[in-house]
């Protein structure tokens, strides 16, 4: 399979649509995780946010990756309601800033974009690694993406590495005791459950990787 050297706006738009699908499909599962250690609305909240994103993409598709990411940021911050709104909103906003007006995203820029998103989460939520939050999925993802870029990987491989690391990071939140957010009120009782924010982060990054893989394959066929 031919590997693409860059991903374009079409990839971003397809990724966002796939994100909405994946969130809708995992809505109950995410809310169940949240019910165990939080207020039980993470899946519904995120689904409401991404449904609104979908409606806006249909109404007027953004012309650049930066515009698309900014649209997601605005929409999630206004529609999600819970902590995930400003957290993901800030992540997409910083990602949008990182890509700027660039139309073709190469591997190093993708890694920079993911790092900016993670840094936005940290700045907004003030969580440290191992606080049992989204950051515990994003930090391994960012590290894996950077290592992959350093090894000369293509965008699809960079995103695949990030997604796999995020999934592992989300699993690794299970034994952790929460130190941030609603789950921190549970103290020791938060251990034994996967963090819902880390779980949804892994889903969104997996959607990015799968979109790139599928998109790359389709492009190669044409």
């Amino acid at each position, binding site marked *: 399979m031919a590997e693409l050297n860059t991903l374009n706006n079409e990839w971003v738009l397809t990724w966002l649509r796939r994100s909405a699908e994946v969130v809708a499909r995992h809505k109950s599962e995410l809310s169940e995780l949240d019910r165990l250690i939080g207020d039980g609305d993470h899946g519904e*909240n995120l689904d409401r946010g991404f449904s609104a994103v979908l409606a806006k993409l249909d109404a007027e598709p953004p012309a650049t990756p930066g515009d698309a990411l900014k649209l997601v940021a*605005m929409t999630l*911050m*206004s*529609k*999600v*309601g*819970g*902590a995930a*709104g*400003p*957290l993901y*909103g*800030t992540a997409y*906003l910083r990602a949008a800033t990182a890509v700027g007006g660039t139309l073709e995203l190469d591997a190093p820029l993708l890694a920079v974009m993911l790092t900016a998103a993670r840094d936005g989460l940290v700045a*907004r*939520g003030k969580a440290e690694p191992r606080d049992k939050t989204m950051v515990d999925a994003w930090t391994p993802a960012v590290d894996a993406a950077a290592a992959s870029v350093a090894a000369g990987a293509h965008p699809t491989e960079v995103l695949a590495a990030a997604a796999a690391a995020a999934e592992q990071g989300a699993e690794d939140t299970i034994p952790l005791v929460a130190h941030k*957010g609603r789950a921190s009120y549970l103290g020791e009782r938060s251990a034994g459950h996967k963090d819902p924010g880390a779980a949804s982060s892994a889903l969104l990054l997996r959607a990015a990787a799968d979109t790139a893989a599928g998109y790359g394959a389709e492009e190669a066929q044409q």
Partner: protein
Amino acid sequence: MTVGLVVVSHSAKLAEGVVEVAGQMAKDVRFAAAGGTDDGGIGTSLDKVMTGIEAVQTGAGVLVVCDLGSAVMTAESALEFLGNPDDVRVADAPLVEGTVAAAVAAQSGRGLAQVCTAAEQSLAGHGSASAPADSSSAPANTESVTADVELINPLGLHARPAATLAGGLGKLDVDVTINGMDGQSVMMLMALGAGKGTVLHVVATGADAEKAVGFVTQEVSAGFGEL
């Protein structure tokens, strides 16, 4: 033109209620209640916060007061979207006490930094960890003006009279304590819990010390117009 206040809460009712309470003490201050999600659910909305900031900005600055963690995050996100302007701040303050203290400070014409400080110190007079204003910290070389005056209105120093005193004293160039508490802080005065019959010991220093003591004596003796 006063500092405007935006109250951000997970609940639309809560935000409106806090605005209602604080508004009673600050008739010239512009408030925006930014509570609930866009569709009326529990949560916070970037749209509502940004619209609120715009609605109360008169040029004197805007203070945003929030309830739980994600409301703070939404408020901070709104500031990031606006490019982190100098004249909008998010207070690290309890919602009800902070908004009331900020409203009274804004009503008495304080600037954004002071309104923010009023909100952030609004809990300082509560509980066992209370830190009454230390009268010994007043410069030793200034003459202080003092008076003792008894509360005669039935409800004592409740919210409205406390706001009257703090608001009036806030406009004067004076350092003033009432029974050891900062007389320019409505929350501190309310924290005294002074009922009818309590004698208030007023100590004032500074250019307007005479005026300040006269003002307190007059208001208290008149029963704050509640008799």
